[in-house]
């Protein structure tokens, strides 16, 4: 029974593993262009295991940002996992805390979505281990392979490769922007704040990104909260009339 649940998890996680393949490959490739060795790049995938934060750290490393600020940015970007594991907690089969603490490491945007939306009823611990293990394996292995490919890239591509990281960010952002004005606002406001701080030289890059991200997330949320309230008030008035 337990064994079946584990293999079912591996099977379900395969789609995530396939999805990670190009992203991890690209990360390995970019890590190479950012100056990381294959050990350093793969170690990041092994120990951190968070796509967006890893990409962000590459862009900050190339800008020469203070390592401490890179850690802080990583924290800000990854506290969203807090929400995910908090909501996942109710769906999971009860288990010992140290067991939960192990598969907690494997909770990413993708594995969370799969576990949270995939099945009705409680999710078994073995299933969670299956899903997270295969996704994690794919992430680590393809990081290393990407780095090897990057090392053998023809020279004329090197200049063009410098854009890859940002193209990747755009490729991640744009699908969520379509039909979602809030996402457009979040990105635009953060970009505007960062541009102002950057061109006035008020803050260093790492701090500026941190401040712009938090300010935009809070301000846009407040704007939407207020709109939500006024909309509710409007509906109430309509009902009275």
């Amino acid at each position, binding site marked *: 029974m337990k064994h079946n649940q584990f293999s079912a998890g591996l099977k379900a996680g395969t789609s995530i593993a396939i999805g990670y393949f190009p992203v991890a490959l690209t990360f390995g490739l970019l890590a190479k262009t950012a100056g990381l060795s294959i050990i350093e790049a793969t170690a990041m995938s092994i120990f951190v295991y*968070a796509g967006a934060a890893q990409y962000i750290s590459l862009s900050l490393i190339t800008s020469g940002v203070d390592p401490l600020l890179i850690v802080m940015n990583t924290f800000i970007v990854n506290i969203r996992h807090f929400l995910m594991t908090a909501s996942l907690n109710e769906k999971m089969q009860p288990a010992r805390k140290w067991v939960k603490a192990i598969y907690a490491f494997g909770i990413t945007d993708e594995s969370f979505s799969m576990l949270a939306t995939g099945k009705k009823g409680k999710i078994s611990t073995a299933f969670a281990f299956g899903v997270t293990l295969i996704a994690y394996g794919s992430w680590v292995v393809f990081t290393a392979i990407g780095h090897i490919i990057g090392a053998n890239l023809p020279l004329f591509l090197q200049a063009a490769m410098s854009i890859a990281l940002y193209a990747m960010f755009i490729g991640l952002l744009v699908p969520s922007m379509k039909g979602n004005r*809030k996402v457009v606002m979040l990105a635009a406001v953060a970009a505007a704040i960062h541009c102002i701080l950057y061109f006035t030289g008020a803050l260093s890059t790492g701090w500026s*990104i941190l401040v712009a991200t938090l300010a935009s997330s*809070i301000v846009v949320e407040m704007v939407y909260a207020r709109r939500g309230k006024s909309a509710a008030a409007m509906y109430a008035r309509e009902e009275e009339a």
Partner: protein
Amino acid sequence: MGPSYWWMLLGMALVTYIPRMIPLTVLDGKELPPVVQGVLRNIPYAVLGALIFPAILFVQEGNILFGVLGAGAAFLIAFLGGGVMSVVLGTIAVLAVYSLFV
């Protein structure tokens, strides 16, 4: 990269793992206020905006056109519905052609 890289990696690993682990173990079933949840959900989109601009314009020193062209290509491919990989490869292809001929 020197030893500072490994300290940074340790820090990154800790600040990534802790938010994943705490709700499943320490909190076990307590909920955050909705406003905090909203703000946390916004962060990934906001950080992408701040990361892309203005840095994308300066990827090649002294040649803003290179960055503008790359940004244009990436947004276009993404809007046309290309996946992340095709956005990355398409943009690289556009700029590779540009640097070969210009």
